[in-house]
């Protein structure tokens, strides 16, 4: 496992006193209850980690920073798929069904979003309407043809599946890479930008 927390990792150990003064009351409650925070993409000081907090509703999202030294445990999206609970919720059914298919790609993959948060924290945030958010680590080129083939398979799942390709430059949406657009949106620590090829060395350096 990487020593440095990566986007979408769940971290435990942040306390309410680390929140800025303007943080909402629900964010303090989340931390006081011992719930994990989610690593997000942003540039922060070396001794800190950019994180996001999740509350009970979609509007309850708060971006903050956590001190690196206060991390007591960390779970990556890949670790969350080791043991899946029995559930009739479409997002969890989809995860069950896609598991062997994603394993067969031979690349590291994991679950993020509400399903990942629920699997990691035990807090029931997944609803019947929830999408399934996945990430696939693609350190080397994942062609647009491969992307189209994979997207077609994901589209047969019992719920909407959003898969992000984690490239050396940052993350792109599989759905966009599988489409016709010449430029695709790359999400990285310094923000978002439109690029042609996330595996291009020049794009990495940009």
């Amino acid at each position, binding site marked *: 496992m990487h020593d440095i927390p990566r986007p979408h990792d769940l971290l435990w150990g942040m306390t309410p006193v680390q929140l800025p003064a303007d943080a909402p009351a629900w964010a303090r409650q989340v931390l006081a209850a011992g719930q994990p925070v989610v690593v997000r993409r942003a540039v922060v000081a070396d001794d800190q980690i950019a994180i996001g907090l999740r509350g009970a509703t*979609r*509007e309850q999202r708060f971006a903050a920073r956590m001190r690196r030294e206060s991390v007591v445990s960390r779970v990556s999206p890949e670790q969350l798929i080791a043991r899946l609970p029995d559930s009739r919720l479409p997002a969890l059914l989809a995860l069950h069904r896609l598991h062997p298919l994603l394993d067969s790609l031979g690349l590291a993959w994991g679950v993020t979003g509400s399903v990942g948060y629920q699997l990691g924290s035990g807090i029931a945030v997944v609803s019947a309407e929830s999408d399934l958010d996945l990430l696939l680590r693609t350190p080397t080129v994942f062609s647009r043809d491969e992307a189209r083939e994979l997207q077609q398979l994901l589209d047969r799942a019992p719920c*909407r599946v*959003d898969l992000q390709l984690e490239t050396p430059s940052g993350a792109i*949406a599989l759905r966009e890479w599988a489409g016709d657009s010449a430029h695709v*949106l790359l999400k990285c620590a310094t923000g*978002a930008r*439109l690029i042609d090829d996330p595996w291009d060395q020049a794009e990495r350096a940009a």
Partner: protein
Amino acid sequence: METLSFEFPAGQPARGKALVGVVGSGDLEVLLEPGQAGTLAIQVVTSVNGAEQRWQQLFERMFREQTPPALNIDIHDFGATPGVVRLRLEQGLEEVGHD
């Protein structure tokens, strides 16, 4: 879910139409079609409630710098950051400009 409508002064109708972006967390889909001369009409369907002012400010900043072509723009937002919204709009405006 919330539906918001905005209007801004615009120039002549754009020539082409374009669809940019993707449906997915943190992103948005933007459909741009030629509109009525002088008017830029934007409809936003967003998963994030209570953000009308943020949208208004973002559009104002973008269209103050340069008068946009007359368009009907449909946005489906899935919690994109203002930076991503701006990139997608610029991408769409560039595509309708090329046709």
